[in-house]
């Protein structure tokens, strides 16, 4: 009869909207619902399957590593066997080219440096010739005249446009 009372208590709490009381009463009632017990051998069978699966994965991992090592070793050997003559020729040719190119490289670098010095001296003379105080003053004066002329021209154009508008 206890469960019947619990059921009525739960239904009454539910109808009254008492959330906590309904939750507690229903939890008590639900405890009477029987649990489905797995077969006695379930744990042993599952543990054995887990163990077998783990062993299988371990075997696969070991086999995978072994296969990877064998493939890498075989690949290296095959690569070496195929590429050894070509590789030796490439290294030899590279060294020869480098050794032939070095004197030319030095010669062109010396020539370039001479040209650079000549250009530097010409530039220096030009700068000395231009950068005297009277010449600098003259340049500034010419620039000022230019600015003034531009300003005056702008004013003239504006007056001209206004005159046309009045007409």
């Amino acid at each position, binding site marked *: *009869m*206890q*469960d*019947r009372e619990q*059921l*009525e208590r*739960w*239904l*009454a709490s*539910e*109808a009254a909207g008492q*959330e906590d009381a*309904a*939750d507690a009463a*229903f*939890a008590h*009632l*639900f*405890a*009477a*619902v*029987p*649990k*489905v*017990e*797995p*077969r006695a051998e*379930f*744990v042993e*069978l*599952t*543990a054995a*399957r*887990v*163990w077998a*699966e*783990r062993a299988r*994965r371990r075997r696969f991992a070991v086999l995978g590593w072994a296969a990877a090592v064998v493939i890498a070793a075989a690949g290296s050997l095959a690569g070496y066997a195929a590429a050894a003559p070509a590789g030796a020729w490439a290294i030899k040719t590279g060294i020869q080219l480098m050794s032939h190119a070095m004197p030319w490289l030095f010669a062109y670098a010396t020539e370039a440096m001479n040209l650079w010095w000549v250009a530097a001296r010409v530039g220096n003379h030009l700068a000395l010739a231009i950068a005297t105080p009277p010449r600098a003053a003259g340049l500034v004066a010419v620039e000022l005249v230019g600015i003034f002329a531009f300003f005056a021209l702008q004013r003239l154009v504006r007056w001209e446009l206004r005159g046309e508008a009045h007409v």
Partner: protein
Amino acid sequence: MSVPPSDAELAKEALAGSDAASRALVARYATPAVNFVFRFVHDRALAEDLAQEGFLRVFQRLNTYDPERKFSSWFFQVVRNVTIDHLRVNRLATTSLDELKEGGFEGAAADKTSSSPEDLAGQGELAGALEQALARLRPEYREVVVLRYQEGLTHPEISEILGLPSGTVKTYLHRARKELASILSSKGWGPA
């Protein structure tokens, strides 16, 4: 008296390769797992098969388990995914009491030593009616009811397992209970 190792400790040992720890975890979660799955498939043998699949997946992915989380939440999440995968292929909705009995549901597990035969019969009927009403609920409602009242999980734990906001879990529980009350009342289990 020694304290039994926690789920997280057992999981750590199992991950390190301990067969005993794996076995202990299986023993600890066998009944909850089978029960949880049974509420959705209503077939004892299938529930055991799916629970076993769940255990296999749990042990395969044990390296992804974060010990900061509660093991049971993570465990039920994995078992739930296995069940959902199965249900997607073989859709099962609600079921009748006869189907439940055929599936392996064996009636009430009341305290048979202290109850009268009348009480036992009444408890058995009530448990059966409750089981039948539960089977008629929408799967998402049934799920929260099972996790809350069968497995005793808290709202945040259920929320974590189902990936739902805690408020939604509370709403589902409230509606599920209302629906169960309505079904039981319509079957004559209301106040005398």
